[in-house]
């Protein structure tokens, strides 16, 4: 299905985090991020997760 790469390897853990906490650009970027993160998860995502859940249950249910 997808032609783009799905990474197979494990990725390194978070170590060095950068951006000055008082940087106006950094502050605005973080607000942008935080506002979206604070939104409720839309219905279509819940439907998608429901499909995954059904597949999980289907796989777990003996015939």
């Amino acid at each position, binding site marked *: 299905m997808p032609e783009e790469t799905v990474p197979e390897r494990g990725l390194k853990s978070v170590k060095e*985090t950068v951006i000055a906490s008082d940087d106006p*650009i*950094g502050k605005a970027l973080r607000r*942008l991020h*935080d506002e979206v993160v604070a939104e409720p998860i839309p219905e*279509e995502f819940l439907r*998608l*997760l429901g499909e995954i859940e059904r597949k*999980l249950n289907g796989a777990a249910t003996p015939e």
Partner: protein
Amino acid sequence: MNDPVPKTVPLDDKDFRDQLVAIIPPLRAFARGLCGTRDMADDMVQDAMTRAWAARQSYAAGSNFRAWMFMILRNHYYTTLRKNARMVSWDPEVAERVLVAGPTQQDGLNVQDVQKALQKLPAEQREVLLLIGANGVSYEEAADIMGCAIGTIKSRLARGRVALTALIDGPAYKDEPSDKGSRSPAISPTG
């Protein structure tokens, strides 16, 4: 006894699903910053989740799930951009409706101005600003996600910050004519 050691140990499906749920908000935020519009971003995230679920056996338990998901999302984003060379990632009229309403300038820069300016940057600069500046990932993790050297990340970040500041502060930003071609995001591989 002599069985080869598997390259990766996949996560249990239930655990994988739980990680997927937890990553939705930051993934949506990253996609929103990349695409500029809510609908397109959410479509991207759902596609990325579907791809991740299909490829869950290739995810190594214990490795960085956030980086793995961000990588899938950005790969999908660039593939979509290339397939739709004329795709416009920023529509001011749509954005006007979908961006967060209400006061967004408690102190410092206006968030909507930043969002608009972000869309005018080359995609590589935009994503590094979003990853490091907004999501708080490290240089190292950003390099993993973007598949490039840490030096490249630092360089793109520095250039992106300068460009973003210039766009926000510059007189050309607010009254810029709409026919300058700047609405199409640059996707040159070098950034």
